[in-house]
């Protein structure tokens, strides 16, 4: 089986090249990058006017499987990933049971193997039951194929335990992913603390809670000389702290999500529970600082924090709604806005969507002869209106329904197989 992606603009930042060319794929691998491909007996994907990039990697998704399959399961999650242009995803461990045992990790791999081909890499729990009380069997989890550890959503508050988690995990080269939140400050919070929480009459979660925990975790990483990854950075102060520790030479990487560069806390005015996210949508100054951090390289990656919830869970009084929104299928156009607004060059956009290869040590990040053909083709100019009812995800919890956006995934290719293509 031979596939030729013809005449696209190949954006290959790791190789340092952006050029109009074609890619020949055989047996799941890239066999040739050439302007004059031999298309005899080949399936041809015409990528004229499109960008052809290394497969996108989303290092932060929640697939709810096992335990909450009514929100999302691994199959629907992988379909949503493919529709969003992602060829690899890293799943967070807050399933039921939590991914704190090797059987659950194996189950995830087995289910993913029966999926559409998009690669799934589980992030395991750092502590037993995500309870923040005792160490998970990190060695066995690593052996089972977990790619990192995290207590995402229920951050470790006990600093001594955090130290031990990082120390113990280092034996197995497992990196800790920090969901940075001071639970005392956010306990009853519904949104960011600021002018809009005052006006809307809701309890606020101050930026300080996120930033202080990022500071703590970065200090710990520097002290232990271990890498750490900071999840979903949402605030200007957080950016400054990450910058401070990066400049000191600590091994820190960080991600943000498309919603933090698109919306602010003003968006909660309609009391739409699809604007309830953790960390919360912040102020306009924070939004601009996060965009700048993407530009400056302080934030390394875009991750969606894809968090499906069933409509009946979201159609409730605001305080009773769970936090989180789906993100896989809207990420690209939201981030491409920065390209259209001339904030970021296309090479940087592609870097941000593929940085998972270096952060998590996943195969990918570049298109090269001999490498697995994980490729994302997208049309940067295609205009469409987000319709949540068209999502491949089982869930519909998005604040972007009805948004007019520019840029769409044309095809998602994993190991040389087209797992998604859009009917324009």
């Amino acid at each position, binding site marked *: 089986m031979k596939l030729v992606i013809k005449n696209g603009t190949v954006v290959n930042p790791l190789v340092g090249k952006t050029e109009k060319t074609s890619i020949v794929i055989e047996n799941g691998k890239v066999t040739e990058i050439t302007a004059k491909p031999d298309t005899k007996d080949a399936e041809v994907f015409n990528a004229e006017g499109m960008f052809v990039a290394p497969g996108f990697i989303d290092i932060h998704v929640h697939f709810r499987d096992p335990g909450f399959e009514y929100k999302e399961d691994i199959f629907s999650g992988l379909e949503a990933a493919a529709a969003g242009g992602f060829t690899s995803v890293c799943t967070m461990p807050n399933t039921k049971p939590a991914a704190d045992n090797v059987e659950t990790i194996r189950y995830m791999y087995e289910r993913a193997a029966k999926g559409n081909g998009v690669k799934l890499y589980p992030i395991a729990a750092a502590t037993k039951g995500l309870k923040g009380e005792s160490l998970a069997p990190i060695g066995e989890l690593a052996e089972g194929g977990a790619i990192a550890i995290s207590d995402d959503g229920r951050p470790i508050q006990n600093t001594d335990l955090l130290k031990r988690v990082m120390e113990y995990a280092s034996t197995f080269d497992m990196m800790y992913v920090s969901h940075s939140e001071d639970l005392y400050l956010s306990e009853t919070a*519904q949104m960011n*603390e*600021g*002018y809009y*929480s*005052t*006006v*809307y*009459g*809701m*309890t*606020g979660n101050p930026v300080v809670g996120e930033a202080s925990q990022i500071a703590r975790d970065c200090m710990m990483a520097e002290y232990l000389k271990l890498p750490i990854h900071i999840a979903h950075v949402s605030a200007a102060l957080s950016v400054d702290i990450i910058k401070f520790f990066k400049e000191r030479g600590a091994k820190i990487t960080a991600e943000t999500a498309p919603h933090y560069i698109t919306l602010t806390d003003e968006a909660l005015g*309609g*009391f739409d529970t699809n604007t309830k996210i953790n960390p919360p949508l912040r102020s306009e100054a924070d939004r601009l600082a996060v965009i700048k951090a993407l530009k400056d390289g302080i934030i390394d990656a875009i991750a969606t924090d894809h968090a499906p919830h069933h409509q*009946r869970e979201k*159609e*409730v*009084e*605001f*305080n*009773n709604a769970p936090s989180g929104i789906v993100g896989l299928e809207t990420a690209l156009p939201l981030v491409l806005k920065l390209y259209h607004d001339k904030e970021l060059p296309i090479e940087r956009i592609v870097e941000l969507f593929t940085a998972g290869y270096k952060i998590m040590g996943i195969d990918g990040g570049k298109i090269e002869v001999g490498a697995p053909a994980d490729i994302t083709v997208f049309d940067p100019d295609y205009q469409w209106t987000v319709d949540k009812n068209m999502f491949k995800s089982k869930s519909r919890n998005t604040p972007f329904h009805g948004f007019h956006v520019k840029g769409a995934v044309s095809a998602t290719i994993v190991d040389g197989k087209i797992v998604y293509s859009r009917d324009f």
Partner: protein
Amino acid sequence: MKHLLGIENLNKDQIMNILETAVSFAEINQRQIKKVPTLKGKTIINFFAEPSTRTRTSFEVAEKRLSADTYNIAVSGSAIQKGETLADTALNLQAMGPDAMVIRHSVSGTPQLLTEIMDCSIINAGDGFHEHPTQALLDAYTIWQRKGGFEGLKVALLGDIYHSRVARSNIYLLNKMGAHVSISGPGTMLPKEVEKMGVTVEKLPKYAVQDADIVMMLRVQNERASNLLYPDVREYSRYFMLTPELLKLAKKDALVMHPGPANRGVEIDDVVMDGEQSVILEQVSNGVNVRMAVLYLLLGGADK
């Protein structure tokens, strides 16, 4: 206007229209027979998902004097206790064909949610810390009747601003009508960036009360003391209670207001509460006039 969700989205003319309409209902409420057929045949559900004596009774009195058929639901007696979601309860109530639902709920934004689920008029009787529009309107009515207008008045708003929907609705309303609001309360009870709502923030009540035309007290929610808002009642009353001495700093003819229920000896001294300047019970009487006006304008007045 179909719903009354808050003061934020009302303009000055709409507010004055409500107050002026309330005047004619005040007249009715002075009669021997305080009942008119205006809303005969209309069905109104009062859904109170949070304890309330004053507001609920006031709405019910207003509805009955307008001859509407009214039904009261409290959470303890509703299907929500049995695990039904609010959305499903709302759909079921909608199926019974009410013309309006008056809703009190502890979560901000719930009345807005109901407008998306139900077809009838939704009247916000207080949501979370967000808004309590009819309270602000009855406060405005009281001020208007007593002071003849709003322009240039200084209103001191004292106490727990953070948790107060009354404060937010009053700030919106008084600003729209040209009054000036000074607020004061302990730091734990002042929400962030509240000055951007167009109020002057004073550290201690004595600065806010200085030369005020109106001193409006807010209830200290005793049940919140456990939330580390203030050390104890003794300390709170020492610095934030409206005493006769504090009131002397206001204008001589200043009015003392309180949305109730008041904690005597905590945020307001008995002498002040029962004193000549207090219009607290007048507020309650005016509540019926104003709520009749709101119901009339939403349900009966539009097509007349």
